[in-house]
């Protein structure tokens, strides 16, 4: 079997699903499950499509980096489907396309192909977001997303004119062999950075996030904030580590922009009073942080941070969106005490948010500590200080939310969470604890990821 099936099967199923609307959601679940199972049977390597050897044909790269990404994203995708099954019915075909697009993003070894998948998954995301029934927000998303991908395309065209190839590894080779300076690469790189930045929620390209995630239902919330965000971060990681060499000065400028993004994200979350808004601003900060780590070359732990974010954002957004679907409000003050009646949900939410704020016993802590160790090894004291200071702000607003959601003076509102979401969030919460205490797994995975990019790991 070839990894191309991960893309081809969902696409084929998408076409079939148009024929029978009733069968579509079932087909979606089956395909998603098939993807998860099949990942474990593929062998690592580069797959050339249609027998055209790289750099002439399109190639898919299945290495340990994309493998980890595929496993995490496909499982997360499946779990989101389970949580929001009744919403899924209307957009099953779109979700199949989205699945194909996301897998494509992770697998592709070709920059133009990447653009195609950005468009495919992007259009799917616009359509998924229509289930929020906030059409203006979706329209904004559409406009900004399109502007973003045009920038990506523009950058790519310039790059092609300079280097004459679209294949990632070939491009990296030619860049070094033809001695193209990092300075000359700055312009196309910057355009592509902006293009991807729109999808990755980087400030200031991310104003769509508020409309989409701030009104998200239980499908859109976890799908965009966890699955899509994780995928785009990994794509970013691949481009930053294996294609481009960022010049010091450009790297500095980008780091500053991203640091502003972190500060902005955390302070905005601090200033917000709505649950989903707090979470979405917090995830803006997280996204910026991950990209900084990729820029700094802390690839292995950046990947782990992406995974930790995928897990915890899935839990947080699933619960937040589900709650606001039920209560039609997500003002934290109106939700006081809801967890005291839904302890399982509450504990999962608590664990996920403590993990995001980096408290021990949870996965976020292990990742944060190792990231900080690497940053200090690089003697980047200012970056470390900013990360720590913003973490204080982050912890404060999370604790504030937690206390409000657990304690109440009057009677709390009752919500019936169905058993699916209860099971899923508690399994994920347990997973956060497992990775937070049994750290050998993480260290091994970091080693494997770093080997892919031949980075001397942190031994």
């Amino acid at each position, binding site marked *: 079997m070839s990894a191309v099936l991960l893309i081809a099967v969902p696409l084929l199923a998408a076409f079939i699903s148009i024929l029978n609307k009733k069968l579509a959601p079932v087909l979606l679940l089956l395909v998603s499950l098939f993807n998860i199972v099949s990942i474990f049977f593929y062998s690592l390597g580069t797959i050339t499509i249609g027998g055209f050897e790289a750099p002439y044909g399109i190639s898919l790269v299945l290495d340990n980096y994309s493998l980890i990404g595929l496993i995490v994203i496909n499982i997360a995708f499946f779990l989101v489907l389970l949580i929001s099954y009744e919403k899924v019915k209307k957009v099953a075909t779109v979700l199949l396309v989205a699945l194909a697009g996301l897998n494509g993003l992770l697998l592709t070894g070709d920059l133009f192909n990447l653009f195609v998948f950005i468009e495919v998954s992007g259009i799917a995301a616009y359509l998924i977001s229509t289930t929020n029934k906030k059409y203006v927000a979706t*329209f904004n998303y559409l406009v900004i997303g399109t502007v973003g991908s045009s920038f990506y395309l523009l950058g790519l065209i310039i790059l092609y004119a300079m280097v004459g190839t679209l294949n990632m590894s070939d491009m990296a080779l030619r860049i070094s062999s033809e001695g193209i300076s990092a300075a000359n690469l*700055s312009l196309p790189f*910057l355009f592509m950075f902006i293009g991807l930045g729109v999808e990755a929620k980087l400030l200031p*390209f991310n104003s769509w996030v508020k409309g989409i995630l701030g009104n998200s239902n239980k499908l859109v919330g976890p799908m965009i904030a966890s699955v899509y965000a994780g995928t785009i971060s990994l794509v970013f990681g691949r481009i930053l580590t294996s294609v481009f060499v960022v010049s010091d000065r450009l790297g500095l400028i980008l780091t500053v922009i991203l640091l502003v993004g972190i500060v902005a994200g955390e302070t905005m979350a*601090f200033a917000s009073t709505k649950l989903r808004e707090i979470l979405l601003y917090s995830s803006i900060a997280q996204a910026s942080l991950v990209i900084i780590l990729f820029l700094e070359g802390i690839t292995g732990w950046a990947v782990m941070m992406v995974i930790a974010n995928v897990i915890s954002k899935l839990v947080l957004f699933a619960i937040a969106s589900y709650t606001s679907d039920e209560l039609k409000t997500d003002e934290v003050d109106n939700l006081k005490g809801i967890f005291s009646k839904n302890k399982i949900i509450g504990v999962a939410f608590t664990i996920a948010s403590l993990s995001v704020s980096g408290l021990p016993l949870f996965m976020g802590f292990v990742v944060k500590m190792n990231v900080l160790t690497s940053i200090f090894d690089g003697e980047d004291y200012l970056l470390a200080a900013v990360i720590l200071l913003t973490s204080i702000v982050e912890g404060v607003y999370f604790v504030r939310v937690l*206390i409000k959601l657990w304690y109440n003076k009057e009677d709390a509102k009752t919500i019936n969470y169905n058993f699916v979401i209860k099971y899923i969030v508690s399994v994920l919460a347990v997973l956060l604890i497992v990775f937070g205490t049994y*750290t050998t797994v993480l260290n091994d995975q970091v080693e494997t990821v770093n080997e892919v990019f031949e980075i001397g790991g942190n031994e």
Partner: protein
Amino acid sequence: MNFASIEMILMITLASGVLAYLIGKLNAKLGSIVTILVSMYVTIAVIYFGYNGELVITTEYLPLVTFKVTNIGLFFASTVTFVFAMVSFFNPFFIDKYKFKALYSMLYIFSLVGILGVFFTDNFMTLFVFFEFTVWSSMFLIPMGKSTKSTTLYFAMSTIGSFALLYAIFLMRSQSGSFDIDQGLAMVSGAKATWTYILLSVAAFAKLGAFPLHLWLPKVLGDAPDPVTAVFSGGLEKLGAFVAVMGLVRLAPVSFNIGAIDMDFARYVIAFIGSITIIIGTLMAIRQDDAKKLLAYSSMSNGGYIIVALTIGNGIAISGALYHVLAHAIASAAAFLAIAAVARKTNTTKMSELGGMIHNMPITYMVYLIAIISMAGIPPMGGFISKWMIFQAVINKGLPIIAIGVFFGSIGSFLYVFRPLAALFLGQQLPEYKHLKEAPFFMVLPMIILSGLIIYTGVLPNYILGKINEIVVDLGATAVTITEYTITGFNGTIHPALISGMFGVGVFVAFLIFITFKKSKKVTLMDTYTAGEFIYTEELLHYSVDFYAPLERLYEKYIHIMEKTYDSIRNKIAEVGHFFKYYFFTNKPEVSVFWIVIIVSLLLWGESLW
């Protein structure tokens, strides 16, 4: 399985935390009884194995965690676990008041686990993990009390401390190449040493509740459940003292020496802040009406004593500081427990709402009396010994400005510690509390044990001082000269047992006078003379209201300065957030496009940069 191994004790404790939760789910009271058993077990194991030198530090099951038994770690661990054990006796009596009963028992035990890990490790990373673990497990205990408001404040201040500690840890690692505590502290130098010093001080200040990071202490101690208050003041706060020893004593001097007093400038600054802490704590304690808040501010000022003594850093000063850690831990635990015993019956800790509790709870009264005598530094209690040593050190070093703070705090403490005594226990009995009885035996027992220990530390301090001398030698200072009954300071020798004997004689004479002379006449609270008018606001006539009004008037304008500062910091952060929201997150896509274009054109314009 080796039961004397720290790893084993830690894992058993952790497991029984989960067990306490499960049992607590079935029966809340049983769950809280588990907390007693576990904390007793930990205390006995630590003290017995520890002082027999039998604690095993090898690890079999916990990877990456390394342990080490040091004299100072053992001293802190036995003090704090002992406080935990004593306080745990109160848990079953209070468990019904909490919203999440089973969780309370679990988190109580988890905080104990964190404490153990911090004190018994030689590795900074392990220390930090357990430090943070303590923070979050104790954090969730707070909102179960009166109010949930102070929880976030506690988390914020604690995290400032933790992250300062973390940053310092990484700075030391960058020079020593490992997370080893001894190496890290020894090898850090230059500018990094200065930063490490500052950051460690911040961490210690945040945990001890010293100025300017003190704000959480009165709020948390006022709001938290009553037993938790005792644990915070007697136990968790002492984590700060532990960090302070690392930063203030074990780190080599980091700035220039002030010739006149032969003291490092940086240390002098910290000592100065320590004495400000004493003064602010004292002044604020004087104005409190809530007995718990009063004691909280007194904890703050006692933290100041520890800081001042540690900065001086000679043998007497360090012993004084460490002895003060012990003396204050048991005295404040006893005082808070006594208040808790009253509050359990009356549901209030406001002094103006209480009175005459001595008639209902004579033993609790005695416990409180002994505790505050110790806190005020009067013989024959433990607090006297430690304060005497600290005074000796300050005077000998020739630090007049610092000494003003130190003496002011000591005199000020007379003003405030006796107020709860007078308002709460003495005076007329309120009619609504007439039927109340003494606390049950299992609440009285730990209080009596603590009182006994307070007296023991005051009368015969020499055994414990001997142990502290070992720590002092470890820290590189000269041991204090002690014989079986005497302690020699810089300007003389004291004889605590003799002082206590004289004190005893005095008490005996007073007692003789008391029983031979005429008994006082009992009047009710309503006997107040009001010139024939009907009293509408009789609580304002309670004599504890505005007790020190003339003194308070001198500084009442300034008491909210710190609170306002932190409020404005919070508002500033939120303002920055609103700013970003306003400029970047509009509902208009053209604004985003505008920003993209701006960034691109700016970068293109600066193309020549690269």
